[in-house]
């Protein structure tokens, strides 16, 4: 807020508070009764469902390939570095919690929301660093994308997920910038929800990919 010639007389007293947000959302919804509120907007959900279907096919491809040659898949699986996969799952879950808390902070008009989103971004960075160390170790062990079908799928599917994470981190960086603004409009909040939902998607895809690749035995 810069110079206000009216000394705040015409300022919205609820601006930046939970109540202010409630008023904005209610006004935005044209005062129609709300049975449910779409988090973010419907466009992102169509996009998310597309991704979920694509990854659903990836999961099915992987499990049926595993049943074609269970011995080779199990031998290859045992050479993976389980700890990295597990810690990365925990990291993404922490990131997801930060997203939820960040959005909540934004709704209540807290000036600290951007710090929480920044923490989320850092968990993503940590994941990426872990992933590269893990790739280096697997390659160092003498395996690569062409070693066998297991490693082929391992590298392609985890890299596809990594690409999603990098996109989610770019989105989160945008959210940090938005959250740094002194006052958050309904539009600001919607952007945070859109990129937040995308972050959760990246999280939940890893929540499935990790056990399928690293944990499942035949």
């Amino acid at each position, binding site marked *: 807020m810069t110079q206000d010639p009216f000394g705040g007389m015409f300022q919205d007293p609820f601006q930046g508070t939970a109540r202010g947000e409630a008023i904005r959302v209610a006004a935005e919804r044209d005062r129609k009764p709300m049975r449910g509120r*779409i988090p973010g907007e419907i466009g992102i959900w169509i996009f998310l469902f597309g991704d979920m279907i694509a990854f659903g096919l990836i999961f099915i491809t992987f499990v049926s390939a595993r049943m074609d040659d269970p011995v080779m898949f199990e031998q290859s699986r045992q050479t993976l570095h389980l700890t990295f996969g597990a810690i990365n799952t925990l990291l993404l879950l922490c990131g997801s919690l930060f997203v939820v808390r960040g959005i909540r902070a934004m709704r209540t008009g807290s000036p600290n929301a951007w710090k929480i989103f920044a923490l989320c971004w850092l968990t993503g960075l940590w994941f990426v660093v872990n992933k590269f160390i893990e790739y280096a170790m697997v390659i160092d062990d003498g395996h690569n994308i062409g070693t066998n079908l297991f490693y082929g799928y391992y590298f392609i599917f985890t890299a596809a997920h990594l690409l999603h994470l990098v996109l989610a981190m770019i989105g989160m960086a945008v959210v940090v910038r938005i959250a740094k603004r002194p006052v958050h409009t309904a539009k600001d909040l919607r952007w945070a929800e859109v990129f937040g939902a995308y972050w959760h998607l990246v999280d939940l895809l890893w929540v*499935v990919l990790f056990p399928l690749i690293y944990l499942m035995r035949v």
Partner: protein
Amino acid sequence: MTPTDADQLEQDMAIVDRNIKHAGRPVLVVWLVLMLATLVSWYLGDGHGATKFAAVAVIVTAFVKVALVGDHFMELRTAPPQLRWAFMAWCVLVPSILCGIYLLRS
């Protein structure tokens, strides 16, 4: 503003207020459950427990976690039911296919 408009606005605001409060409360508990489930799957997958049971348990656990993320983190619990059910359909369909493939072919 007519009285009905004011009533409607008050009602809407009450719903939004409730949604805001509601969305935050169990999130920490859900997060703890998710972290714990990850650790248990890690332990089970790391060579403990019966193989066949562990494989199915690992798949089911993963998709239960996904459903929790959807409901509590992505706020699908307070979203329009169609959206929520589309999401939950994925959470049931995909693991069913995966377990089906696993059990039929092992």
